[in-house]
């Protein structure tokens, strides 16, 4: 996936940022979809995996900001926390995807995703406890907010993100990570 041109990576990032605004609107019919399904996480994770860590980082910062400005979701009070959390996901998925090469795309994707989702949640929890809500943020609140409430979202992310990457490779919209050698 590292054969993509700089322009294509930039445009893919732009599309992922736009999807950060559009997907939560599409999920709007489902009550509490934002906190349960975390629809904004999917484009950020994909952007990190496909375009690389600088673009994933940008997508994680700009996606929630643009969505908040245009649709009011997430609310201004949650915006800095969400920007930081999503920026971490974008950065970490990109970094791990660059570092891990097992010759099997699903293994690469799942290792990068799982480590990024866990590390992102831990770092976001630490930042919340130290910066955004010092003294009033507990481990139980962290576990509830980052694992229990959004459990369906986590499952959907783990099931959908590799499927989408594979579908994009099959449709030749992104380069194949491990091309099959002929002969």
């Amino acid at each position, binding site marked *: 996936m590292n054969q993509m*041109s*700089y*322009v*294509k990576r*930039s*445009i*893919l*990032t*732009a*599309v992922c*940022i*736009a*999807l950060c*605004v*559009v*997907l939560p*609107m*599409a*999920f*709007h*019919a*489902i009550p509490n979809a934002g906190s349960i*399904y975390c*629809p904004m996480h*999917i*484009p950020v994770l*994909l952007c990190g995996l496909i375009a690389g860590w600088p673009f994933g980082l*940008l997508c994680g910062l*700009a996606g929630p900001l*643009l969505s908040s*400005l*245009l*649709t*009011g979701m997430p*609310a*201004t*009070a949650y915006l800095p926390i969400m920007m930081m959390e999503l920026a971490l996901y974008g950065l970490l998925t990109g970094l791990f995807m660059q570092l891990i090469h097992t010759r099997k795309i699903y293994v690469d994707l799942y290792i990068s995703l799982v480590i990024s989702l866990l590390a992102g949640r831990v770092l976001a929890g630490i930042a919340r406890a130290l910066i955004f809500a010092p003294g009033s943020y507990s481990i139980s609140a962290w576990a509830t907010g980052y694992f229990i409430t959004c459990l*369906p979202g986590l*499952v*959907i992310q783990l*099931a*959908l993100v590799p*499927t*989408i990457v594979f*579908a*994009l490779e099959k*449709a030749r*919209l*992104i380069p194949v990570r491990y091309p099959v050698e002929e002969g």
Partner: protein
Amino acid sequence: MNTMPSGQYITGTSMLHRLDARGKLICMFVLLTAVILTSTLWGYIFIIAVTAALMLFSALPAAALFTPLRRLWLFFTVIFLMNALFFDGNAPLCSWWIFHITAAGLSQGAQVVLRVLLVVLLSNILTCTTRPMELTGALESLLKPLKLFRIPVEDIAMILSVAIQFIPTLSEEADMIKKAQTARGARFESRRLTDKAASVAPLVVPIFLSAFRRADELSMAMEARGYRNAGSRTKKDRHALHLPDYLALTASMMICAASVFIF
């Protein structure tokens, strides 16, 4: 989904529409600082009066400005109640079980709600009176100092402007895909969590495939026309700030200083 989100640019010729986007962006940051730093009743009254004056100068329809506030009513209610019922303070006005209503809690809740309300209104005034392209151009000029740290500011501005242009197209497409999947039996409105979860994949995968196909076409078209990166490009229009922009900047700084130091 059928209507564009609030905060979309509304064509107009008002004083605020005519100001330079860079000036407006700086003014908004200064006013947001005033909103955050104010803590007295008179300070809030002063900023509310300033916001009301800006709404009048913008000549925008009230519905465009107040729609996002209507959507946030649940958030406002929860924030107010959390502060009002759980705030630690002496001499509660009323107590029941774990809830203690105190004057300090009520005041804290009202302050938080008022701050968010003012921030939403001010950012809405900015986005309704400034074209998205002008806004990204302004962001690019204001972020120029970051070039010292080798951050590709022009590329970031280009990505943001492309993202903004993609939103209406992708929104329409997502709506179409949603209708198509509903016709095929997807149960988005079902109360059962399993039905809802099962309906997510047929909605999300086609949206991504279609969006990435558009991205592929656009990047190919750009590369075919010789586009490499934004850093080496020049601009057709370079506008300088004019007297009204400097006046607006001075006024916003005076408002910020007054709300913090006088009231």
